[in-house]
């Protein structure tokens, strides 16, 4: 069974965009299956310094893969020196359908007080 995942990488700001893309291509190769949707945020200031860097190049990936492919992927990313930090999360997507609201909402809100 495949799952939806989202990965945020923080690359070393010294890396050129081409170098970042090359590393991303290598990571994507480990996942197999469909090409991930990649979103480059570009350089941003970090809220605190990571590995003595004050800025980082952020990239967000979204993909669907077998959970068994992840340990190897994470290992490869961890070993990559150009990545300051990364985070893999399962994409929750939208929450399941809301309870038929109109009737339910009003009493529920009153309970909150």
């Amino acid at each position: 069974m495949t799952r939806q995942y989202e990965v945020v990488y923080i690359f070393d700001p010294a890396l050129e965009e081409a170098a970042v893309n090359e590393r991303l291509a290598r990571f994507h190769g480990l996942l197999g299956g469909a090409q991930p949707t990649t979103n480059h945020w570009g350089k941003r200031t970090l809220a605190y310094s990571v590995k003595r860097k004050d800025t980082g190049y952020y990239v967000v990936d979204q993909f669907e893969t077998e959970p068994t492919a992840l340990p190897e992927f994470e290992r490869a990313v961890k070993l990559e020196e150009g990545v300051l930090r990364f985070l893999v999360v399962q994409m929750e997507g939208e929450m399941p359908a809301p309870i038929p609201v109109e009737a339910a909402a009003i009493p529920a809100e009153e309970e909150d007080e």
Partner: protein
Amino acid sequence: MIRTRTKTCPVCEAGVRVLDYKDERALGRFLTDRGKILPSRLSGMCARHQRQLSTAIKRARQLALLPYIKGYGQ
């Protein structure tokens, strides 16, 4: 934050169902001036969104989008 008599969850009111850990501006509203997570008793969050919020803030901290302690080391 100012206490109001009828408190409603600010996230529910905005029509947001899932809080995104990547949106640090939205999350920043729910931090104290030192960067702690604002308790729901002050923010008026519903329990579901408060749980989502704490996960989202902790993820954003790992990604250096939000500070663990605001004003530390500056």
